[in-house]
């Protein structure tokens, strides 16, 4: 489990996150939702230590993460997998080399064992016959799936996904959502997903945190999100005309 307590973060004196407290549960897909610019990505990057926080606490199980030095954070970071918004695959490496990279860096496995693990991870995300391709030769959906394969290569305990569906067509977006949910259950990971895709919210939101202007406004699950009386959340969830029509049709 990851616990965030009273987290505050500002940039050049301008507060971006104010007093955020939330628990992200193990084996569940935890979603952070909110409008663009609401502070979702800053929260995610603060939790994984890419941004140093102003105050508050970030706990990975019983370890206070934000007080650790770079070297001390390495152990926890070796248990983290991350899917970036733009995939962040290494341009100069092939698909196979990208997935193999964390294995080369952190394991002493034989080359055969590494190749076996790479192929297993790529098969798991349905990437076949693409081992020798470079990221520039892949579609957006394939890049995301390769990035997921790289993220799970070391059997992480924690998986972070920053807007995994951005720039993808609805069908591919659903596939990515399903993949994240399946992997979370399969490896019993603590998964945190940043999104503003309402389909993701309905499909995989086992726990949902709604952020607006850097403040946590609402917390619940996918069954509660459509019936909340939190006005900012309703304005966000029913922002598009399709959602409004469905809501009015269902009374």
């Amino acid at each position: 489990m990851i616990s965030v307590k009273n987290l505050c973060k500002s940039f050049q004196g301008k507060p971006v996150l104010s007093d955020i407290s939330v628990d992200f549960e193990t084996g569940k897909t935890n979603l952070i939702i909110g409008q663009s610019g609401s502070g979702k990505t800053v929260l995610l990057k603060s939790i994984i230590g890419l941004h140093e926080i102003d105050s508050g606490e970030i706990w990975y199980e019983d370890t206070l993460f934000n007080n650790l030095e770079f070297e001390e954070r390495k152990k926890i970071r070796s248990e983290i997998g991350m899917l970036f918004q733009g995939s962040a695959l290494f341009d100069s490496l092939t698909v196979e080399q990208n997935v193999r990279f964390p294995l080369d860096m952190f394991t002493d496995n034989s080359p055969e064992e590494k190749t076996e693990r790479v192929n297993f991870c790529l098969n798991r995300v349905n990437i076949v016959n693409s081992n020798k391709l470079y990221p520039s030769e892949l579609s957006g959906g394939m890049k995301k799936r390769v990035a997921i394969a790289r993220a799970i290569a070391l059997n992480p305990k924690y998986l972070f996904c920053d807007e995994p569906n951005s720039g993808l067509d609805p069908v591919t977006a659903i596939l990515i959502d399903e993949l994240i949910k399946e992997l979370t259950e399969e490896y019993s990971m603590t998964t945190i997903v940043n999104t503003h895709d309402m389909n993701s919210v309905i499909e995989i939101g086992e726990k949902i945190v709604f952020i607006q202007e850097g403040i946590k406004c609402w917390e619940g699950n996918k069954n509660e999100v459509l019936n909340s009386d939190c006005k900012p959340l309703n304005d966000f969830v029913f922002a598009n005309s399709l959602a409004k029509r469905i809501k009015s049709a269902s009374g």
Partner: protein
Amino acid sequence: MLRFLGQVGMYFLFMKKVFSKPEKASVYYKQTIHEFASLGLTSIGIITIISFFMGAVITLQTAYNTDNPIYPTYLIGLGCRDSIILEFSSTVAALILAGKVGSHIASEIGTMRVTEQIDALEIMGINSASYLVLPKIIATLCFNPVLTLISISVGIFGGWVAGTMSGVITSENFIYGIQYAFIPYYITYSLIKTVFFAFIITSVSSFQGYYVSGGSLEVGRSSTKAVVYSSVLILLFNVILTQLLLS
């Protein structure tokens, strides 16, 4: 002024991060070999071409500006040799490499920064500064002296070709000139300067790329800054090293 001092402080902190213990030596070794090819071998062509023509021009200019019966013609060969060894193959070649290698490094690392590839390394628990920059520094420190030796050889050859083909000096006189009053320490001096300049080019350009924020426009700007700052520092250290090594 405060901003400048802040940048200098950041540069030294960056260097501390770069020279920390590597995560896995075997991976760094492979990366260093890759950088030898990427930064060193690909520079041989441009260094060879420029050195050849620079040697040729130095020979012709020396010949036409010392057209006096008092001066023996073999001094043309001597002038070409010393100009190439003392200044061209170390300093001018370093300025050219600042343009080619410096902009390459800054844009490569800058693009990795804006596309979150550096964040991906950090999240894996890898010291990104060390992983990306240390192999480049080792590769250039080892390979640039080789480039300098190639430059010296090709530059003097270029001078011989231009001198003999234009008829300003005979082959025998040119060869006598390049052997006359030769001081081997000049080669050492040139190689010492090259090592310093290689470090400046790689570290300054990496620093510019590593701290890029924004998008492609900022990557372009960092690339330009890398070349400008590296060039200025090369010229400054050229003066300092010359005073220290030749005085």
